[in-house]
């Protein structure tokens, strides 16, 4: 089984032309394109059942609530959660991390504690801890990298000393590295620490089972998995979420409000203050259905194949002139290729490629500590998803040489 070959036709944006070229979208690590069915599902919501949820007795409000809760159940199944109540909807993965830091961290972290993250984290899994650490005085500690872009776990036992929370990405958005979450989780648990996982780049691309991962908490974001903007997810084990205090306060998240205080609602509502992103939740449910229909194992296989192809084509053609950061074996990585080509600055490279309708991202990818480790200010990143094919890689490979010509010093 492999992915249908006409998959691109499901994504309206990919039929665009840019500067006279059919668009080649290679920036899915920043945000994925959306299939028709996701866009249409949200349209249908707005055109037929749009109403505020959970509080209305009338028909369309009941339907909106039902559609939203069905989406929650789909998300739970998609990641192997044992109950839909363990799925908390946020606005993005970033909010999910802030929720963990503020709620769990605010309650559990003090001056002698340590939160262990890694050198390859996205700012979303760094800054919330730094903000809290400035208030509470705990240490943020960093797992270093090996030269080939893996986590260096050789000192993990020592690093775990005093740690209450390990929070690590399952896949790097710069290097593509897939991290051994289960191994880290087991070690974390053996010292009584919790394991939070950044699934932002993992959940969209690999079959995900929170139990197999050994995670206690998982954050991911809708717009990178064929879903809309404005929607993120926090999954957590029910007992853990139950014990955490509320994060944002307001409507929906309460059972009662009196002048002298409030009583929080049950899971998952306790963490969902205010009118939820209803259309976006329902849209994300449609995205999950879409990915399920492809099969996540097929998605993963497609990306391994295409990553292998890209590594081969680019290395064969450009040899010494090109550096592709991260693991060289596609089975150890996702389809995220951070490229250094000659001395062409990433920003210039991306500009030249854009002229040919090829979209890649240039920048620090919200991972500045990693950039410093790599010794670069920025990288040019091409990233793959279900709709990409070998022709996209060929277009990329074709276009590096002319960029090199233009900027050769």
């Amino acid at each position, binding site marked *: 089984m492999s992915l249908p070959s006409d998959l691109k036709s499901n994504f309206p944006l990919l039929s665009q032309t840019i500067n006279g070229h059919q668009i080649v979208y290679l920036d899915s690590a920043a945000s994925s394109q959306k299939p028709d069915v996701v866009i249409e599902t949200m349209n249908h919501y707005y055109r037929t059942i749009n109403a505020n949820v959970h509080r209305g*007795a009338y028909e369309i409000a009941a339907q909106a609530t039902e559609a939203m809760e069905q989406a929650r159940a789909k998300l739970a199944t998609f990641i192997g959660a044992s109950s839909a109540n363990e799925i908390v909807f946020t606005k993005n993965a970033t909010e999910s991390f802030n929720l963990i830091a503020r709620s769990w961290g605010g309650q559990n972290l003090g001056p002698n504690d340590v939160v262990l993250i890694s050198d390859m984290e996205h700012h979303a899994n760094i800054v919330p801890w730094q903000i809290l650490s400035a208030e509470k005085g705990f240490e943020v500690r960093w797992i270093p990298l090996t030269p080939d872009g893996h986590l260096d776990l050789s000192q993990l036992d020592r690093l775990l000393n005093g740690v209450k929370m390990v929070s690590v990405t399952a896949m790097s958005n710069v290097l593509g590295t897939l991290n051994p979450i289960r191994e880290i989780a087991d070690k974390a648990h053996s010292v009584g620490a919790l394991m939070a996982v950044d699934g932002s780049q993992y959940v969209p691309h690999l079959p995900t089972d929170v139990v197999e991962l050994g995670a206690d908490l998982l954050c991911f974001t809708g717009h990178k998995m064929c879903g809309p903007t404005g929607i993120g997810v926090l999954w957590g084990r029910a007992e853990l979420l139950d014990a955490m205090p509320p994060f944002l306060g307001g409507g929906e998240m309460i*059972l009662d409000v009196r002048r002298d205080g409030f009583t929080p609602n049950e899971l998952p509502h306790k963490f969902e203050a205010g009118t939820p992103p209803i259309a976006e939740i329902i849209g994300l449910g449609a995205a999950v259905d879409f990915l399920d229909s492809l099969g996540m194992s097929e998605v993963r296989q497609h990306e391994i194949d295409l990553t292998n192809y890209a590594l081969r084509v680019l290395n064969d053609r450009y040899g010494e002139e090109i550096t592709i950061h991260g693991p060289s074996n596609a089975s150890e990585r996702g389809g995220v290729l951070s490229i250094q080509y000659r001395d062409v600055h990433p920003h210039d490279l991306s500009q030249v490629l854009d002229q040919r309708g090829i979209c890649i991202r240039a920048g620090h990818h919200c991972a500045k500590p990693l950039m410093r480790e790599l010794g670069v200010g920025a990288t040019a990143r091409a990233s793959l998803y279900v709709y990409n094919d070998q022709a996209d890689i060929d277009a990329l490979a074709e276009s590096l040489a002319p960029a090199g010509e233009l900027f050769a010093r």
Partner: protein
Amino acid sequence: MSGLEDLYKEIILDHYRSPRHRGELDSPPAHKTEGFNPLCGDEVLLTFALEDDIIQELLISGQGCSISQASASMMSAAVQGKSVEEVRKLTRQFKAMMSIHEESIGAEDPPSEDDKPFELGDLEALKGVVKFPVRIKCATLSWNTLLTGLDELEV
């Protein structure tokens, strides 16, 4: 979409208009438990006297919509003189009737074999509520409150 007649059966309206066992027992000796539905502000207050694991008397007060009031009234009629075990069984069956929409992930186990033969009687009239999912919580409010009360007494 079902019509209102599925929801507001005559017998339900009857219980709503003339609620049974309304009032409050002195507590103590009776046990008192409160429940509320944050969705619509409904409140129910149960007082009941338990002797030899039998509910000797149960009275209801509070305020709420026709469904929550009728369900409470029917419950009050159904549980008088029943043993705690019988009440728990009845509650399970009633909730099973209500919970058609709870069969998602993480739902509790289905009622076991020996729960089957019990008679719901009048309570069957509330079956129409499941077609109006928003109202299920109205119908189950008094029942959940009673369960809480029994749990508080650890019986």
